[in-house]
């Protein structure tokens, strides 16, 4: 098979402290719209980066500051790409609207007791989820006029909640936590009655330490999670979403990938093309794919390639851009963001 390599396209400097997270704008990168992504950092700012179509190089288009008073931990574009949600240690979540290139903060979501750690939009862009060290997960509904109304406060995790993600097609919410569990939340009968419908923990051979991130494959029937226990786990379900009659199709453990990273794995992301990338505190990035040369009891997923010393310090976040020829972006403690191209 051909030799694949992860080529560093560009190293983006600008943040003056560790970069925690980033998010590609889903509405960009096709139909001649230049690729755009947002990054957030311990320097309390969010930066918007845009690719120059001629040079293919990214440059900082805007810096969103003086709204959050502490670290901005995560950011997420609405499916339309119009709104950007940013979650911060200052216990608030800010909503930014892109008005002709200018970003202005149109709404601030308050309610969490302390650090908000992750934010996520549902597929339709009608719901927003946030989670915090206060162990709760909040679901907000987008109202006309950038109004956000709290739909429900979900209590269930026993420790701070590290990440929330909506299922790519269904209104099912997934959260992972310092308590080593992944919880699945669904609204049974549409009366704002959100309940935890499944907990994936050690009993169902889940993770044995903090679960830092999770990501779905394109079709949404598989999910990969990564953890402080130095493993990646793949999960799957028969039927995506709720069955007729409101029954819920549970997720089950498929396989565990161990021995690849030797320090905490902070981030994992599954590309449309079926390759998932992981970034960890060992400064390395690794790519995995399904193992299709299916000899019996061969590994179900195999290491595609590894990039040692991808950054000078911990890698906090990796994410593939949308579109069929995706770029990979990685964010690190060394204060830089790197854009990678998977070439053969």
């Amino acid at each position, binding site marked *: 098979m051909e030799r694949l390599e992860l080529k560093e396209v560009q190293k983006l400097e600008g943040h*003056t*402290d*560790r970069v925690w997270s980033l998010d590609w704008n889903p509405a960009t990168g096709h139909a001649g719209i230049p690729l755009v992504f947002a990054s957030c950092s*311990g*320097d309390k700012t969010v930066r918007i980066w845009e690719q120059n179509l001629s040079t293919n190089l990214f440059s900082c288009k805007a810096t969103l500051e003086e709204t959050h008073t502490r670290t901005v931990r995560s950011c997420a574009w609405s499916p339309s790409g119009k709104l950007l949600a940013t979650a911060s240690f200052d216990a608030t979540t800010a909503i930014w609207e892109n008005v002709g290139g200018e970003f202005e903060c149109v709404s601030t979501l308050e309610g969490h007791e302390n650090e908000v750690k992750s934010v996520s939009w549902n597929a339709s862009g009608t719901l927003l989820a946030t989670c915090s060290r206060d162990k709760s997960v909040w679901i907000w509904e987008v109202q006309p006029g950038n109004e956000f109304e709290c739909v429900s406060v979900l209590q269930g995790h026993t420790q701070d909640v590290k990440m929330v993600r909506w299922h790519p097609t269904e209104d099912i919410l997934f959260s992972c936590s310092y308590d080593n569990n992944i919880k699945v939340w669904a609204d049974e009968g549409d009366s704002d009655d959100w309940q935890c419908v499944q907990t994936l923990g050690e009993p169902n051979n889940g993770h044995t330490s903090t679960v830092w991130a999770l990501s779905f494959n394109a079709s949404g029937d598989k999910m990969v999670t990564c953890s402080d226990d130095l493993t990646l786990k793949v999960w799957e379900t028969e039927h995506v979403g709720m069955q007729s009659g409101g029954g819920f199709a549970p997720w089950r453990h498929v396989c565990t990938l161990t021995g690849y990273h030797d320090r905490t794995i902070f981030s994992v992301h599954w590309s449309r093309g079926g390759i998932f990338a992981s970034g960890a505190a060992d400064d390395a990035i690794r790519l995995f794919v399904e193992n299709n040369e299916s000899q019996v009891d061969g590994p179900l997923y195999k290491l595609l390639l590894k990039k040692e010393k991808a950054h000078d310090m911990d890698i906090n976040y990796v994410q593939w851009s949308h579109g069929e020829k995706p770029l990979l972006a990685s964010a690190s*403690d060394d*204060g830089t963001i790197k854009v990678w191209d998977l070439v053969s």
Partner: protein
Amino acid sequence: MAETTQLTRHIESYVDSSSTPSHQVASLDAIVLLIKTNALTLEALVRELDMYLTSTDTLIRSRGILLLAEVLTRINSISLDSKTIHSLVGFFKERMADWKAVRGALVGCLALIRRKSVVGMVTGSDAKSITQSFLQHLQVQSLGLYDRKLCFELLDYLLEHHVDSIASLEEDLIFGICEAIDAEKDPECLMLAFHIVESLARLYPDPSGLLASFARDVFDLLEPYFPIHFTHQTSGDTHVQRDDLSRTLMSAFASTPVFEPFVIPLLLQKLSSSLHSAKIDSLQYLRVCSSKYGAERIAKYTGAIWSSLKDTLYTYLGEPDFSFTLAPTDGINFPKSEVVVEALSLLQQLIVQNSSQLVSLIIDDEDVNFITNSIASYEMYDTISVQEKKKLHAIGRILYISAKTSIPSCNAVFQSLFLRMMDKLGFSASNIDGLQNGGILASQSVNFGFLYLCIELLSGCRELVILSDEKRETYCTILHSSSAVLFNAFGSVLAVTADRCPSHPDIYIGVKGLQILAMFHLDVFPIPKSTFENILKKFMSIIIEDFGQTVLWNATLKALFHIGSFVQKFSESEKAMSYRSFVVDKIMEMLSLDDIALPFSLKVEALYDIGMTGMKNMLTILQAMEGAIFTNLSEVHSNLTSHETAVQLLECYSCKLLPWILKNGGAEEFVVQFAVDIWNQAGNCMDFNSPFEDKGLLDAMMKAMKVSVGCCSVESQNVTIQKAYSTLSSHTKFQLNDVGRLPLTSGKYDISPRDEGILLLFASVIIALRPKTHIPNIRGLLHLFIITLLKGVVPVAQALGSMLNKLTSKSNGAEKSDELTLEEALDIIFNTKIWFSSNNMLQIYNGSSNGSDIVLTDLCLGITNDRLLQSNAICGLSWIGKGLLLRGHEKIKDITMIFTECLISDRRKTSVPLVEGSLENTEKQKCDPLARKCATEAFHVLMSDAEDCLNRKFHATVRPLYKQRFFSSMMPIFLQLISRSDSLLSRSLLLRAFAHVMSDTPLIVILNEAKKLIPVLLDCLFMLTEDIQDKDILYGLLLVLSGMLTEKNGQEAVIENAHIIINGLIKLVDYPHKTLVRETAIQCLVALSELPHVRIYPLRTQVLQAIFKCLDDTKRSVRNEAVKCRQAWASIASSRSLRF
């Protein structure tokens, strides 16, 4: 009366708790004054106070009482009638019940009982009643610290001075004291408390009496404090140190034998505890207590103590240190261990106290016996098992102590153990006698164990005899009879054979053993002359043959040295004789003998060490050495080896022997002689070029000459200089009497090496002269020096500098008319015409100037297009300048002007008429780079402290603060020139020169000018980073900067330049060529972080980023600085972010 109102005011302000302490004290003093001046009677005061003393407001009441008390304390010199005292006592003792006012009561009582009899003191019954009321009313431990202290002081004083009156209180007293002390924690209080217990014991001495029955209870109080251990190191503010407290507790423990049944077991138990301090204390206490309790009380414990002593030694006695670095005489050296020291002195104490019992314990001890019986099996040190080694060492120490402590114990161990071992090794008493007359025993097997113990024994009784005057003790006889055996035994360890070379410990044992044998005092233990000499022979043979064995050789030499100085010290004539003939003479022979293989460097070393045994020997050796030097000098041409030999000898002479002699006060005449003799030789030995082809020998001679002359008196110097001068004039081609007209031998810069040699030697004499010494034909010499320095003979320049530095100047009147004055000399130097004949011959021209002549300074400015000549001239001038600068002569100004001229001279249009021969190349009429480099160096010469001339060692006249003066005169000039200099080159030269000046100037001066200097200083720094060669100047300069930064008014100057400085320093933090530079640069940054934040905050990120790299510097020192710096800058202003 008038006072009352005033008095009440005072009282009010004292009693009023709201008034400030100072006020209260003031009013107190006022009242006291009233009483002292009889303006107020105590009675009146008391009346006045009555309402306060009886107030129900406790605060007022207590203040009132306190006032009265304080007054009493302050009038302890004013006599009071017994009645008054009595009623005062009555009052205060009553107040003890009034717990709110207890402070006053205590102070009052203290004041009263402390009164001296002359001014009326408390009666016994009063003292007693005070004590009673104290015991009845006070719960000491419920009081505050200060009051507790007072309580203890009171008790202590009572027990010290009113014993008889309070003795009758018996139980009550004892109980009361116990109660008071119980669970006290404050060190100062405890000091008193422990002392109180001690006095208590003195109060009831009867071992079966009152105290005996309470001993248990009293001791229960003391016990928990042992061992004293502070939980925090007491800082300055507590006056009680742990040791003082521990000592007081100790004397409390030891205060009475009735404690014995509790103390000793406790100590024995603590002795086995793991806490280090506990062990040490236990041992100390045991020592003191057993001496206090007396032998028979201790007897029953001796066994127990002995065995735990042994264990302690086994565990704490380290590996013996088999090296000769430490003191020679005492036993075997062990790593210092307090525990061991204490243990041994305890043992000693026990032996002193109870000799027979201890000795028998030791002799019958199973371990001791085990060792002594199996002694034969300990042949080689390395073959002995670790366990047995430990035992061996411990036993060794024990024997050492028992040998050195008392005659009987010494006799005993010798009689039993020593002889027993001898038997085991098969020297029965009988064949010992056979050996009396030094007859060599058939080569016996070396036995390490035995010898090891012998050393301990020997050194033990050696110390014993130093103290005791008894002679002919048993052990002496034994020793005497076995000395031969011992000699053989020790000697044979050292035997080096093809198949065997002794290991470290063996060497140690052997050498040390012999040494000790040799160092016994004649009158106590006369080891046979033969043995003594055998020892010396043995050692010498090692010196001569076994130089391959470095360790052995060095050890032996040391031993010889110690023996030598010993016999010298105790002037044991007979031994001294042998020593001379067997050691000193031998050593001297060695010098001349080339046939022996001993490397020469070692010869010299041996020579020196033996010499150091005493002035007498040293001088003998010096003669020998001088002889050797000259023979070699005379042979330098014939054989090369004698060349190095000479060098080594000279080195040794000037670096070792001479200093030693001077230190030990003596023999100037010898030194002069030496110098003169060198001159005698100089003539002959320098007939040849060979010696000076490599400068080594010459340098050595010059050095020797300098130091010899330097340390002599004027008279001796006169002798030397005369001699030197005559040699110079007779043996060289310089015709000194008309130097003016001589053309130097043909060819451009040609002086014969021979002449140069002599000249240099002469120069070194001049350099070392004292100002008063008379220099013959000084004019001639001046001329000679000028010409020769133009040939680049630096020492000549230095000599010239020294001359000028020491000449008397007209101003303070030259004594004799024929003495040349400074002014004349300067005139000669700067106005003598130097004439170039067409064939470039160079000479001094005295006649009227004929247009084609130049003076020294012109040469410096490069009139003749002769770069070499110019550089030499500049270099020479720099030394002349130094000479003048040191004595603070104005002329230095002109000289420095010339140098600066050179630095900037690419702007200079030629002003001086050209010399023929240089016409065709006018455009080259510029100072060439080499010469200008010299000019920068000149400033280094001027400012730096020279090692080999113009320093106090060589009697230079040094005007105080000359550097400061020079700096302040030069600074404006440089600053101006630098600012004006248009060419890069001259700018960098100027900077470099100024860098030299700055880095050698005392910081204080620099600081005053900091404002002006900083920009230049920074320019210098950057300029210097370019060339690795400059790394040292760079460092020097950086130090100046850091000096400014760390100094108060320096910082002010820095503020407005903060930006440039910081940026500059950031460039230096990764300067690769010198760690110290990086380190210092970072330290500077730290210092800068203290500037007003508004100024430096903008640079914060920048600095931090730079420092961040330094955290990963290759050098630890740099990293540490970086950490501090990072911390300093990170903590500036708000941001707490981790990374930046």
